[in-house]
């Protein structure tokens, strides 16, 4: 089934190529009509504006967080950070500006709560009565003697300190809680635009106050902003880079133009089908155009390089095209299939946007293949392509390199094994870090503003617990409150914790108020009845929107504890979470052994979850690709051997990254599967030529390696250059996940070329040694014209 096989198929392919050229107008027209039809789908594409998209519905941390939000309140927030002009927030004109902003903030869409220094519901004892009111009520006094109590209260109030104010006293926050209905995809952009508009009005009214806008909603909005931003700053340079590289390598303006056509059609088709399927745009998908463009180029390159070579060898345009399609049909189909499998393995990811990315790129890769074998030849046949017939000198570099390989094969192999082993050891040293606050780079305002908030006021890193009591109303039991207090103190003693928000501080304050503000009574009420009745009275006194629903459930059988931490790395955060959960196991009754929940907690575990699910996906992809190669190469031995150059680049790349940067986000999970599909192409081309030389030309290992280098060496270098350039440009993305993914993929691709040029030949020489397979017949019809 080996020698006879290529002939009939080649005949079919040849007839197909000739048919394409005969009916080129039909091919061109139907391509355009097809693209136009798919393009209708793009109107369905929307932008997803939420960190939530990274979590599948089955994600346990997302479920826990949703449950918590359903029990208390559904909170998304916007934080205005105000910096006082005189570095003193307890000053009349500044407090007035806070009052104004607090008042206006209630009117923003979806706002259900506004917390600020001025509207903090302070309770004080007044002639045996309790008086609950805004901390800064009505007209702000100008007298410092009247202002200092405000400062004292604020600094001593655990619910304010390190949340809306801090010890420095130069910044304060106005925190908006939004309840987004999640019915309309435009809610987040609407809310953000309204907040920015309010900020502008504030700046106009109080120009001396410096403002920064942070918070979850604004950050969510940055997801689409960064994607749109990237489209401008990355996709266009990408086009330029591809054209430059193509023009330089192919030395043919018309061929470059034709490639541009293939890229455009592929890209438009991908977007169109994406819309038809109903996939929304999200930051990970922002990397899709670049990936598709880069991969589409690779297909065209193979066809064009052969075509131009054939023309240089004196064939006419038509014959050169048919020959090129004939030679490249199978390898390009094979590499398309393997690349698509690699990207489809992303479906095993726990993060839906990566599944979408994998599927859309897989579609794009298939589309690129179709356009490359149909549209490209038809289009080229219309163009006045000319080549200079002077023969360029072959790359003598390859010959010298093969000489080195032959002389030092043992050293090369041993050296490769050492390098791979060393990098392999480095892989587990990689720290998984998904600090969502650092997902965007400093070119985006939100990152600058969040960093400012973190540095000058408070962090956005929250860990939440919903702590159940034994029974309905049980949160008023002194034992429960006592435990809450100890839990809160446990976290407060951690240097990474900025603030702990729980009902126990309110309880203590109320007890103090009920006893004439005697500081000795700043403690938990003695009986359940007292606690319950204090709370009832406090609830009676709270105004609109400032109730306790966000801290206590309806049944008064559980309360929410919010721990605000410094923006530490994910690893430290996971420790912080685990310590709290363990504390509960060690100190609290069984029913209180709960897990933490919050977006921060979700991101803390996202990498591990994705990596464990992607291990299966990548394994399956590797298995199917190997099986395909075994059949395609017609050899079990070489199919199995292909696993070496297919797996090694990822190990080398990740190891090198670990050595260079030491940390990686959740994109690490998808990189192995994704790069697998790409790097396979190199080994497929190399191995297929090697095997052809052995089988059809009866060459020995050495000669076959030389032959493989001559036939595909240059094409591999060219595609590697293009892929590296493409993914490096993705490394410019303002979104960290894409940025890291681009850089690491570029590194892996370079390693793939090195593996195919160094390790693979060394392994082949080792395996095939000097034994010559004389039994192999030379197939006269299969003399390739390349090289």
């Amino acid at each position, binding site marked *: 089934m080996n020698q006879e096989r290529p002939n009939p198929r080649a005949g079919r392919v040849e007839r197909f190529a000739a048919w394409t050229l005969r009916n080129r107008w039909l091919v061109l027209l139907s391509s355009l009509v097809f693209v136009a039809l798919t393009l209708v789908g793009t109107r369905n594409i929307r932008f997803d504006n939420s960190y939530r998209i990274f979590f599948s519905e089955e994600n346990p941390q997302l479920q826990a967080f949703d*449950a918590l*939000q*359903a*029990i208390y*309140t*559904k909170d998304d927030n916007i934080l205005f950070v105000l910096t006082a002009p005189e570095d003193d927030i307890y000053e009349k004109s500044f407090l007035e500006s806070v009052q104004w902003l607090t008042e206006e903030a*209630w*009117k*923003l*869409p*979806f*706002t*259900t709560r506004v917390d600020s220094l001025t509207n903090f519901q302070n309770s004080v004892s007044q002639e*045996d*009565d*309790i*008086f*609950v*009111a805004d901390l800064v009520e009505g007209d702000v006094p100008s007298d410092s003697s009247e202002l200092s109590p405000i400062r004292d209260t604020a600094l001593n109030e655990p619910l304010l300190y390190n949340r809306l104010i801090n010890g420095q006293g130069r910044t304060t926050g106005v925190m908006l809680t939004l*309840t987004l*209905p999640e019915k309309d995809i435009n809610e987040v952009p609407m809310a953000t635009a309204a907040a920015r508009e309010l900020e502008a009005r504030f700046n106009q009214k109080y120009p001396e106050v410096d403002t920064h806008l942070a918070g979850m909603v604004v950050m969510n909005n940055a997801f689409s902003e960064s994607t749109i931003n990237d489209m401008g700053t990355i996709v266009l340079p990408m086009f330029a880079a591809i054209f430059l590289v193509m023009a330089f390598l192919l030395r043919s303006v018309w061929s470059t133009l034709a490639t541009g056509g293939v890229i455009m059609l592929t890209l438009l088709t991908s977007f169109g089908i994406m819309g038809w399927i109903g996939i929304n745009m999200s930051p990970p998908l922002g990397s899709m155009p670049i990936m598709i463009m880069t991969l589409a180029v690779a297909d065209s390159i193979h066809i064009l390089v052969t075509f131009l070579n054939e023309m240089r060898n004196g064939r006419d345009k038509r014959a050169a095209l048919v020959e090129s399609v004939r030679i490249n049909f199978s390898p390009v189909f094979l590499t398309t299939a393997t690349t698509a499998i690699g990207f489809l393995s992303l479906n095993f990811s726990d993060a839906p946007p990566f599944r979408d990315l994998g599927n859309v790129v897989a579609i794009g890769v298939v589309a690129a293949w179709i356009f490359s074998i149909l549209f490209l030849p038809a289009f080229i046949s219309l163009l006045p392509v000319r080549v200079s017939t002077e023969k360029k000198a072959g790359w003598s570099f390859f010959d010298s390199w093969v000489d080195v390989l032959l002389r030092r094969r043992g050293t090369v192999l041993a050296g490769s094994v050492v390098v791979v082993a060393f990098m392999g050891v480095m892989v587990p040293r990689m720290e998984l870090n998904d600090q969502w606050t650092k997902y965007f780079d400093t070119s985006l305002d939100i990152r600058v503003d969040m960093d400012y908030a973190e540095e000058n006021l408070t962090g956005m890193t929250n860990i939440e617990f919903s702590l159940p009591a034994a029974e*309905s*109303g049980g949160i*008023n039991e002194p034992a429960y409150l006592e435990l809450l207090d100890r839990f809160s103190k446990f976290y407060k003693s951690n240097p990474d914790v900025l603030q702990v928000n729980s009902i126990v501080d309110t309880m203590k304050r109320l007890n103090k108020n*009920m006893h004439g503000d005697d500081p000795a009574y700043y403690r938990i009420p003695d*009986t*359940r*009845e*007292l*606690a*319950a*009745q*204090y709370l*009832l*009275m406090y*609830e*009676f*006194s*709270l*105004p*609109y*929107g*400032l*109730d*306790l*629903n966000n801290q*206590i*459930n*309806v*049944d*008064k*059988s559980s309360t929410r504890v919010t721990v605000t931490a410094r923006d530490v790395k994910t690893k430290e955060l996971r420790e912080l979470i685990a310590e709290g959960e363990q504390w509960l196991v060690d100190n609290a009754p069984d029913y209180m052994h709960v897990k933490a929940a919050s977006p921060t907690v979700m991101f803390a575990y996202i990498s591990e979850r994705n990596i464990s699910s992607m291990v299966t996906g990548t394994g399956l992809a590797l298995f199917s690709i190997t099986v395909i190669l075994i059949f395609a190469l017609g050899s079990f031995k070489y199919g199995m051997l292909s696993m070496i150059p297919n797996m090694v680049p990822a190990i080398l790349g990740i190891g090198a990254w670990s050595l260079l940067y030491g940390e990686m986000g959740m994109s690490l999970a998808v990189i192995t599967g994704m790069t697998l599909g790409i790097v396979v192409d190199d080994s497929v081309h190399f191995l297929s030529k090697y095997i052809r030389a052995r089988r059809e030309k009866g060459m020995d290992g050495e000669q076959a390696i030389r032959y493989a280098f001559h036939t595909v060496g240059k094409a591999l270098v060219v595609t590697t250059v293009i892929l590296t350039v493409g993914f490096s440009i993705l490394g410019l993305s303002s979104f960290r996940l894409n940025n890291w993914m681009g850089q690491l993929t570029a590194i892996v691709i370079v390693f793939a070329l090195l593996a195919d040029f160094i390790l693979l030949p060394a392994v082949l020489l080792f395996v095939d040694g000097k034994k010559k397979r004389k039994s192999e017949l030379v197939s006269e019809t299969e003399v390739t014209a390349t090289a």
Partner: protein
Amino acid sequence: MKPRTSKVLAFQLAALLAGLANGLNAQSPEERGLEIAKEMDLRDTGFGDSKAELEMQLTNRHGETSSRQMGMRTLEVVGEGDKTLIIFDQPRDVKGTAFLSYTHKVGPDDQWLYLPALKRVKRIASNNKSGPFVGSEFAYEDLSSQEVEKYTYKYIKDEVVDGIDCFVVERYPVDPKSGYTRQIVWVDKERYISMKLDFYDRKGALLKTLKFSDYKQYLGKYWRADQMNMVNHQTGKATRLLWRDYVFGNGYKARDFDQRSLQNAR
């Protein structure tokens, strides 16, 4: 009862005149709205006093529920807002806690709370009318007596709700401390009672809807709903009020609604 009768007469006369004038000079939507509100108030005037048992059922988006039980006594005050006494029965840790309020047509209400665990009566600051009533979806202002003067009105249209022919009237709270910018009320044309209420928050978004059902008539005149369902559209939470054992004509006096009465109210 005499002054009231004359007031009623005067009002009816005014209405008659207004009705006559209607033919000549079209009534504005504001006048029409006010007229409907006045008629509602008028038809509910004169009940004297009442008491009832109330169960409050709270539900959150997660499906958790909680129930509170309380007794409520009301004394009608002529020319002013009513006086209300609420005594908590469940949950048991607040049993005996009593809440007394004097509604005022203009200005903040007076409120006191008796805490049995502390054996003391505490006055409550009154900027709270927009706040939730014991953690429910009802704000205090939703439950306190509905005086005509608390809103300005605008008649919108007629509409049929659940087979009942209704006036649709918009009303705007006078008090700046109210949590609402406007409310839309569906008023049964025949009985002049509220069937449904939409509440719009400070940013003008629909916040809650209250539906009244199972109306019963007492003393051959006064309608009371046995069920009031409030749904918060923004948070997904809901509160159902179940009223039972309405008794009218209890002969309450003003001294049954003073601060001292709080302590032995059970």
